[in-house]
């Protein structure tokens, strides 16, 4: 237990100590909320979609969870390059524990980041349907974060250096974000795209967070929770396996 805890604590300390990173990663969601929220708001309203900020805010929260979690996972590459990974890999503890600790840490940080974005979105006019449901949204943020931190770790375990980083950014993170229903409703998309979004893990995360915060869920909260929990368990197992096979 000590190992999982100290790995978790390390992630939190690093997050807390890098204020520029914390602020920097809040600027982007804020920009999205303001620019898209106020920019597309009137059109969305005119088209009968209702208040766009209410629709958008959960999507942007999910976005910052996605980004922070993926980066936390991919940080394994940095630990590899700056040597610290070796220190953990020669230690007499199971690698699954190390992986679990850092994933929990990354996911906690990502959820915190999501929570901060939620607070910011209140400032620009977002209103939740019931404050009591916020913990439900947080839980879903955490599960979503677990999924993407594990995914990042799994990918990073197979990579030597940051060369492939742009590739991951453009061919994985961006499509996951844009095709998740974070920015626009999925129901009126062409059939092909609808199918793709059904295979996108973030669709369930976004939908669940939106459901908890605004009361409008497209796929159903039960569905969102079950899908997220199952795929997170699977990717966590894959991530630990790949992490345990790392040779340096």
């Amino acid at each position, binding site marked *: 237990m*000590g*190992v999982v805890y*100290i790995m978790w604590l*390390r992630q939190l*300390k*690093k997050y807390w*100590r*890098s204020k*520029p*990173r914390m602020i920097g990663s809040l600027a982007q969601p804020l920009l999205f909320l303001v620019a898209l929220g106020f920019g597309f708001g009137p059109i969305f309203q005119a088209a009968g979609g209702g208040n766009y900020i209410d629709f958008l805010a959960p999507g942007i929260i999910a976005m910052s969870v996605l980004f922070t979690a993926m980066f936390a996972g991919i940080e394994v590459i*940095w630990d590899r*390059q*700056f*040597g*610290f990974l*070796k*220190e*953990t*890999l*020669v*230690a*007499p*503890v199971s690698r699954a524990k190390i992986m679990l600790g850092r994933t929990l840490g990354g996911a906690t940080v990502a959820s915190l980041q999501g929570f901060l974005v939620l607070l910011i979105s209140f400032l620009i006019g977002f209103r939740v349907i019931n404050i009591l449901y916020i913990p439900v949204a947080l839980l879903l943020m955490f599960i979503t974060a677990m999924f993407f931190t594990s995914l990042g770790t799994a990918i990073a375990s197979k990579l*030597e*250096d*940051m060369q492939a980083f742009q590739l991951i950014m453009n061919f994985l993170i961006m499509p996951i974000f844009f095709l998740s229903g974070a920015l626009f409703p999925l129901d009126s998309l062409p059939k092909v795209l609808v199918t793709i979004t059904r295979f996108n893990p973030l669709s369930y995360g976004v939908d669940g967070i939106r459901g908890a915060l605004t009361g409008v869920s497209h796929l159903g909260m039960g569905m969102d929770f079950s899908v997220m929990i199952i795929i997170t368990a699977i990717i966590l197992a894959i991530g630990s396996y790949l992490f345990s096979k790392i*040779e*340096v």
Partner: protein
Amino acid sequence: MEKEDIIQVKNLVKKYGKFTAVNNISFNVKKGQIFAFLGPNGAGKTTTIKMLTTLLNPTSGEIKINGYDPLRDKDNARHSFGIVFQDPSLDDDLTAYENMEFHAVLYDVPLKIRKERIEYLMKFVELWDRKDELVKHFSGGMKRRLEIARGLIHHPKILFLDEPTIGLDPQTRNHMWTYIKELNKKEGMTVFVTTHYMEEAEKVADMTVIIDHGKIIAHGTSNQLKKQTKTKSLEEAFLKFTGHSIREQEASTLERLRVHRGFRRH
């Protein structure tokens, strides 16, 4: 005789595709020895250390670390040694004390002993008064000293040092060897060291092995090696054994990355 060998290596081979990094080497290290493992760049030193320390799986061959097989009995083998890597392996965003504590938790050192030992070791390497500073503000020499202290928290039987003095000034180097020799004497700790500084090896090592192109080409005390080659210093003997041509070595990813470092670290 067998009993005294704390490290046993038999017919060890590591291949990367067609390239053979370590080619069928065998040697033993006696308990309490300072053992120098020398060789030019790319000779296979680091690859061998990685296999001895469970970081890399050998292609074939046998290893025993303190009686344990690092492949089958990983955790026992890992408890037996401490290691200072060639490249830094501290977490720059944590303080010196946190780095030490982290290690103590990983090696399951009980809480009570943990504090005492960390304090003792940090005083030993003269870093106790800077324990709460972030490691990123430390100089290369301070980081090295901290790494040595860290490698000793769990009282290992063997200490692996992969070029521990590289890039350090003569004062720091001198200091470090004093620490290491003291530990070796006081605790009877076996020290396995690689270095490019032949004078250091000559001064401290009880036994020396020279490896080149993945094969062991010489084995003996400094005096024996000097006698064999009819030379006056270990450096000359080393050059006689390994030749004068300069070895090419691919830049490690770390070196390539250092150039870009500024762009990510905060």
